[in-house]
Structures are given as C-alpha cells and as structure tokens.
C-alpha cells in the first residue's frame, strides 16, 4: 500500500470482501426509499385549502360511503420521497443514452419554458376559438415545418405517440381502400420492424404477412413484389430501417406497391437520420408518423408523453382525421366537426378527444425554430457522423452482422464477437451499467442474433464518444480475456442488482397490499 511519510495511506485499500452492510441499507448518497403507502398517512396532507362556506350537497344518492385509502405526505416529506426516487434513475442529462431507435438526444430547457407560458400551457381546448388564435397559428406553423421537411401534402397533428400515429396512418389507408370499394386485408411488414407495426395493423383487422429480410437487414424489392396481390392494402416500412441502414431500394419498392394498388406506410421512428437530407414524399411514401419525442427533442419523461403527428401524401390527405388545420386566405382554421367540412375533405373519424399534444407541439416547434433549416440538417449530419464514429472505433473488436459498412444514425452489432466467452449480450449490457452507461437497445431488431443497436445522437461530443468507445473496447477485451464473472454479476454498483422478472410475471404483484397482521407482529 502506498503511504506518505507520516504513514497515512495515500490510496484507498482494496477491500478483500464486499463493502459491509449498513444499518439502513443506504449506501451514502444512494438512499433506500420506502413506498408511499408505507410512509404516508390518510390524515396527512401537503396541500392547504380554506374550508368552503356551508352549502347543501347536490350529490343525490351518489356520495361515497367508504374510505378511499390514499395516504398523503406533507410537502417536505413528498419532496424528499420523490427526489430520492429520482436519484435512482439514469437520464440523458446525466449521461450518454445510446438506446437504438429511441433517439435520446438533449432536451433543451427553452422548450420547457415555452410550454409553460400561460398563453400556451394554461388554455382550454374548448374555450372559444376567438380566444386561442395564437394556439391555432402555432399548430399551423408546426404543420408547415413538418410538411416542408417531409415533402408531404397534409398533416394530422392529433396522434399522441408513435404507435398512435401508426394507427392513424393505417386507419387512413383502410378508409382509402374502402373508398375505392376494395376489400384488401393484408399488410406487409418486414421482419426487422418494430413490434408496434404488426400490432397496429392487426388492431384494425388487417392480416399481417412478414417480408423476409436480406442478410444485411434491408428489404429486397423482389421479395415485396412476390407478396403483392389485390389483397394487399399496404406495406409498413421503417426507413432508415432498424438495422441503421437506409433502404436503398425504397423508390422501387414504393413503385411496386403503388402499381399493385396498395399504399406505402413509413415508420418515421428513425427520421432523425435524414432531416434535411431526404424528403420521404419524394421516396413514394403515403403516410409517415413523426415521433416528436425522438427527432424533435420533447422529453421522454420515463415513458411518455410523446406525440406522433402523421404526414400524408396527396393520395391519403382527404382521409386525415378530425381535427385538422385548414389554411385559408385569412389564416389557419381549426376544423373540429364534420359539419365544418368542405368538398374533398373526408376524414375517417377522430383519434383523440380535443386537438392532440399541444404541450409537445410547443416544445417541438421551439426545437425547430432554434435549429432552423441549417441546424436541422447539421443535427442529422452529426447524428450520422457520431454513429459512424462509434462504428469506426469498435469495428475491429465487435462484429457487425453485414460487415463493416456505413450506417445512418445508429450502428448495429451482433454477438458473434462474444462467441466462446460465456458472456451474453445481456451480460455485456449490464456491465455497461457498472461503467456508468445506459445500455444500448439489445436483442432488437429480431433479425440479428444478440443484437446491440447503438444510437449516440448528435448531442454527444467527440470526447464523450471517445470515452464511450474506450469503455466498450475495454469491456470487449475483458470478456475475451476470460474475466467473465464481472459480466455475470453485473450490475454491481447500481441501486439494484439484476431483478427477477420471471417471479414478477409468475405471481404478479401490481399494487401495494397492506401486510397481513401476522407479518406485522413478526417484525
């Protein structure tokens, strides 16, 4: 052990065994936190109200007869409870978040500030339209930007997330098929697609037929043509695809699909790669959703809210759902009801109550205005640059399923490089947690064995990527040198070790239950 001249250790001793347990179970800044239901009390509140003046109830016979059982916390208790819980989360603000196909980019705080302006955050969807003309104009402006970026004809802003946008697009396609008096009930979906694609098609009664992928994960136009028939309503294609590759034959596929009388739905989850680089309208796309919570930086919030506006080609525009913005000579108009329709407007119905995710519209437009045409294009270029830089840094050590080739905004590895090491993709991902990184998307796309899909986004600096690449290289070397126990044990330093998901699913415990009296007595 290194000592200074006074005999004081200058380096921490390496413990022979694991750190001793603490009385509380806490580990310094990492605090164990009980459930609300274990620390709250039904008669405690953190909100003060004045009592109402005496009045006569008008609840009829509907008054609640029993307790709700909702424990409360005072304000300081609530603050501490949720701050401590927050400290158990990884976040893009605290580190690189390379989840492929999720586009975890920086979330600018100006967006949050704008969404909270009273004129945007504190307006009601059903107050008179004369009192919300700025909101209508904002929606029109967002639509204008989305249409210019995609080269499409019209936009449905109301879908509430990516999968909801898919549903909207496929409902428009179904309406268009019906309008032609046809009975097409098959939707083609490549095997590399997100699960939401087949789930969406099936939800509205389509039969899903899988299109096989080429070895590199792209779609072969010949494979599509072989499946096209008068029964086929549409193809759902992700471009760039989930292997991080641009579908080079997309125009040929679109032409074949159209020639067969079908429609081309594009999953826009990976739009961040091509903003300002290609317009999907020119690729033959008929409908595409745009995840504002991916490409346009609205925060993911631990699982939403998102927003999934859908852009349509001329062929589908008439079927866009209510409500929509009609741009008239003296300004944009919010069309809410069928009674307001004009000739050529045949919406298939309505996706949501009210008008969609206004809070997300504000944030996305704030992002777009900040970037401008030049910044949006630069962001896509940097996103692609970063993914390729990671690829270049790892290509000699990690295996790519279709060889080393240029990727778009995300780079895909398989688990061949782990062959014979005893380390799985899952182990590798969990070891990244101990190194302070959120793992990449793993085991997706399904077409690749042990897939690891890395999307660094444009938000990462070169220095950040250099450390990330160095860390992965070190992990690969450790796995190959037989230092595998750390992988099997990982994560060791997270708030929790690996969790027993089988147990969770076998006997689901989905809410807190008061402990049985005997177990209280046993304590």
């Amino acid at each position, binding site marked *: 052990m290194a000592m200074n001249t006074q005999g004081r250790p200058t380096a921490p001793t390496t413990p022979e065994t694991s750190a001793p347990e603490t009385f509380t179970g806490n580990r310094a800044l990492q605090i164990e936190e009980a459930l609300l239901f274990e620390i709250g009390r039904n008669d405690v509140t953190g909100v003060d109200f004045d009592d109402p003046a005496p009045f006569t109830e008008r609840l009829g016979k509907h008054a609640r007869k029993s307790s709700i059982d909702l424990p409360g916390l005072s304000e300081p208790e609530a603050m501490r409870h949720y701050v401590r819980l*927050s400290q158990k989360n990884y976040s893009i603000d*605290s580190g690189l978040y390379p989840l492929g196909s999720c586009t975890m980019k920086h979330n600018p705080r100006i967006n949050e500030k704008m969404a909270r302006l009273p004129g945007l955050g504190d*307006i009601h969807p059903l107050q008179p339209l004369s009192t919300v*003309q700025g909101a209508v104009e904002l929606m029109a402006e967002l639509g204008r930007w989305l249409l210019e970026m995609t080269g499409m004809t019209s936009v449905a802003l109301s879908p509430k997330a990516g999968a909801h946008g898919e549903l909207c697009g496929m409902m428009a396609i179904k309406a268009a098929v019906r309008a032609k008096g046809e009975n097409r009930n098959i939707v083609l979906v490549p095997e590399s697609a997100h699960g939401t694609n087949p789930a969406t098609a099936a939800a509205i009664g389509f039969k899903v037929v899988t299109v096989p992928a080429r070895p590199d994960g792209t779609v072969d136009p010949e494979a599509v043509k072989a499946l096209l028939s008068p029964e086929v309503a549409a193809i759902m294609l992700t471009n760039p695809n989930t292997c991080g590759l641009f579908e080079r034959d997309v*125009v040929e596929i679109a032409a074949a699909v159209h020639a067969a009388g079908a429609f081309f739905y594009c999953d826009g989850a990976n739009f961040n790669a091509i903003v300002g680089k290609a317009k999907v309208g020119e690729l033959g796309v008929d409908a595409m959703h745009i995840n504002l919570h991916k490409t346009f930086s609205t925060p993911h919030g631990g699982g939403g809210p998102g927003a999934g506006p859908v852009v349509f080609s001329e062929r589908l525009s008439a079927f866009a759902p209510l409500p929509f913005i009609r741009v008239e000579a003296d300004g944009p108009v919010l069309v809410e009801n069928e009674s307001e329709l004009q000739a050529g407007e045949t919406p298939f119905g309505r996706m949501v109550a009210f008008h969609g995710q206004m809070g997300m519209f504000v944030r996305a437009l704030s992002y777009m205005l900040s970037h401008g045409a030049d*910044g949006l294009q630069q962001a896509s270029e940097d996103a692609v640059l970063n993914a390729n830089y990671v690829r270049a840094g790892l290509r000699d050590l990690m295996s790519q399923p279709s060889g080393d080739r240029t990727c778009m905004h995300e780079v895909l590895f398989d688990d061949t490089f782990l062959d014979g090491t005893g380390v799985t993709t899952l182990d590798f991902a969990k070891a990244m947690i101990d190194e302070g990184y959120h793992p990449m998307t793993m085991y997706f796309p399904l077409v690749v064995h042990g897939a690891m899909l890395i999307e660094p986004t444009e938000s990462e600096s070169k220095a950040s990527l250099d450390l990330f690449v160095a860390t992965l290289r070190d992990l690969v070397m450790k796995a190959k040198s037989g230092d595998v126990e750390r992988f099997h044990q990982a994560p060791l330093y997270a708030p929790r*070790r690996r969790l027993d998901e089988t147990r969770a699913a076998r006997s689901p415990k989905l809410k807190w239950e008061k402990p049985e009296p005997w177990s209280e007595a046993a304590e």
Partner: protein
Amino acid sequence: MRFLPHSDTDRQAMLASIGVASVDDLFTDIPADLRVHGLDLPKAASEISVERTLGRLAARNMPASSVPFFVGAGAYKHHVPATVDHLIQRSEFLTSYTPYQPEITQGTLQVLFEFQTQVAHLTGMDVANASMYDGSTATAEAVLMAHRVTKRKKAILSGGLHPHYRAVVESLSDMAGDVVAALPADPTSTEDILATIDKDTSCVVVQSPSVYGHLIDLAPIAAKAHEVGALLVAVVTEIVSLGLVESPGAQGADIVVGEGQSIGNPLTFGGPYVGLFATRQKYVRQMPGRLCGETVDAEGRRGFVLTLSTREQHIRRDKATSNICTNSGLCALAFTIHMTLLGEAGLVRLARINHANAVRLADSLSELPGVSLLNDSFFNEFTLRLPGDAAAIVEGLAAKGVLAGVPVSRLEPGKPELANLLIVASTEVNTDEDRAALVAALREVL
C-alpha cells in the same frame, strides 16, 4: 448551433477516423437524385429570438388564469402545487426513457407502482395499468378489451358520454370491425340504457359524472350487464369527483377508464394528459398498456420491473392486446405527486370545495330570467338551458373577459334542440368575485 457540441475541427478529425473525406460520403445510400440540398425554412435562431416568436403566439391567447374561468367538459382548470412542477422537471424523471433497464430506473418504476395503487384505490378496482394516452383513447381500448373478454362485438355507448370520446370509440371500432350503438345525446339524463342491453352486448360504456354533469347510478346498469354476460365500462373524466362520489368499482364496474388531467396536469389546450385504466384481477391479462410489478433483485432486495409484457406489442407483435408503447409517464408522475400531496384528506376537501363552488354557481345562474338548470345531481359541472344560442352567448361573454363554459353545440353541432345548452364547470380556482362576474356578465348579454 448551441445544441451541437462539435467544432468543425472535431468533425474533420472524426471523418478522418471513419476514413471518409466528407460527411456526404456517409449519406451515399440515399440515391443522389433524392438527396435534399436545403429546406425552405428559416435559419437557426437564438434563444431570445425563439422566446420572442413563441411569446407573440402565446400573447394572442386568453389564459384560464387571466379571467373568470368556467370551462370544463373533459378538461379542468385546477391548482397544481408548485412542488409538482418542480419535481417533474428533475432531469432524472424528465429525461429518462421507458424503464427497460430496471436496475437504473427504479425511480420511475416505483412511481408507476405507486400510481397503479393510487388509481386502483380511487376507482375501487383490483388493478390499474401504468397509464394510457388520455381518457378518450383509454375508453376506446376498454371497448376493444371488452370484445376480447366477452367474444362479442357490440358496444353500447351512453348518451352522456363525451362526444369526442364517442367519436374516438366509433372510429377505432369501425376499423376493427366492431359494432357501436351510441344512444342520442342525453343532456337531461333520462335515457333508458337498461332497455338496450341484450345478449349480443359486449359492454355498456357509461360516463359519470356525464358530460352534462349528471351523476349516474351505475349499480343497476352493472347488474343488467352482468345478467347477460356483458361488461360495464365506467368513464370518469373529472377524477376529483371520486373524492366525494362513490367509486365505479363499488358499483360493479368491470373496467374503469378515466382522464387524470385534473390531478397534477395543466390544461395545455388538450394534451398531453394521462389516461387511467383499471379493471378486475381476472381480466388483467387482457389489459392493454404497461404494467409495473414488484419483485426482488439478486440480493433479495425489493425492486420493481415492467411485467406481463407477453401481452405487449414488442413481444407478441400482431397478437398483442394493444399496439400502445410510449404512454404518459411524466403526466402519471405529476398525477402521483399531486395525489400524494393531497392524500385522502386533501382530496376529499378539494372535492368538497369544487362541489360547493358549483352548487353556489348553479343556484346563482339558475335564478337569472330564462335560465334553467338541467341537473338534479352534479359534482363540479352542470348544464344550463339558456334563452338563446349558447355559442353566441359564450362569445359575447368572452368579449367581456369571462370564459363561461362549453356550448353543447361545440361538441354536438347541427342539433338545434341542443343549441341553447351550456356546460358550466366550477373548481377550487374560482373565487366569489369570479362567480359574481359571470352572473353579472350573463345577465347583461341575455
């Protein structure tokens, strides 16, 4: 560009490492004739410039907090404690993804477990999911779930269901090949829904309080539905009502869906909000959406994970119970924090103040000449018959700086018999002065 870290020197060094000369060499998979060179959009803007642009748009709107405000019909102006907005803006909550890596997302997962428990207790149900997009989409999903459970295809919608919810259910069911029998608009709560329930019925969808504010006795509807093997789907768009009103679960509902916006979430012109979805234990595997469950880690410590994912699209693909993926995590967090601050004591008091304000307002307004109240029972919202076109009157009141409510014609256009009806809501934000302002302004325009 302040959000992009690279200098041009960085970019050149990175291109050299990759082994290409220019960034264009990374886009060669896009056919050359399809590559875009410039968008017809403005150039990048500074933060101060963005604030000006969006500030100008915001200034053209009339915020709820700036006027006496009585607009409801599915979205409500409530006071949200400052603590809520502070906590949901913590980086670790705001900028985290869906908790796919539970070891480093226990914060989000424990919050979801608390959310599920709170929603189950409020609705009187066994189990709730981790949220839906909003109340309307949750209702449409409930109808699809009832079809899966009962293997029947006909849903009956009460005429007290919010017309937007009805339209969402009809649109989705139509595409899914199901039948929807929607009863006519029921502003007086006099429909005979029991007579419409038959052995082909998969579910009856009833909103209480109804969009017109009436409290509905769900128990007999549940009994009749169960008698023929159908489910009762109860819809609650004003969740604060459950502080005073009997829960749908206690009245026999099989699925309870709701809009949770009132707790923790601002109006924001209609979204994002948070859909609530709760049901009986026996139907849990037919539920849509994410579920958080309790388990243990490798050291035996309690922890939480997303569970029962074999129902979900990323596992089951075209056999999934729903296509939902991203839902309303952050809005659910806001709901949970606000509900935790309230506790049962606070929620009941909040509900009493809402009810008291609405009772006083209803009494004052129905004394005006030609104005009559359609409700025998209500919580914080009721429907008035006015002596003239309600939309025109609301417009006149807006010009006087009072936002008076939702004319029924906004939701049910082209129905002359509904044109004079106005839905009015009052919450804890309304003062005696607000009430006096509405009464005085309405007296003037009538």
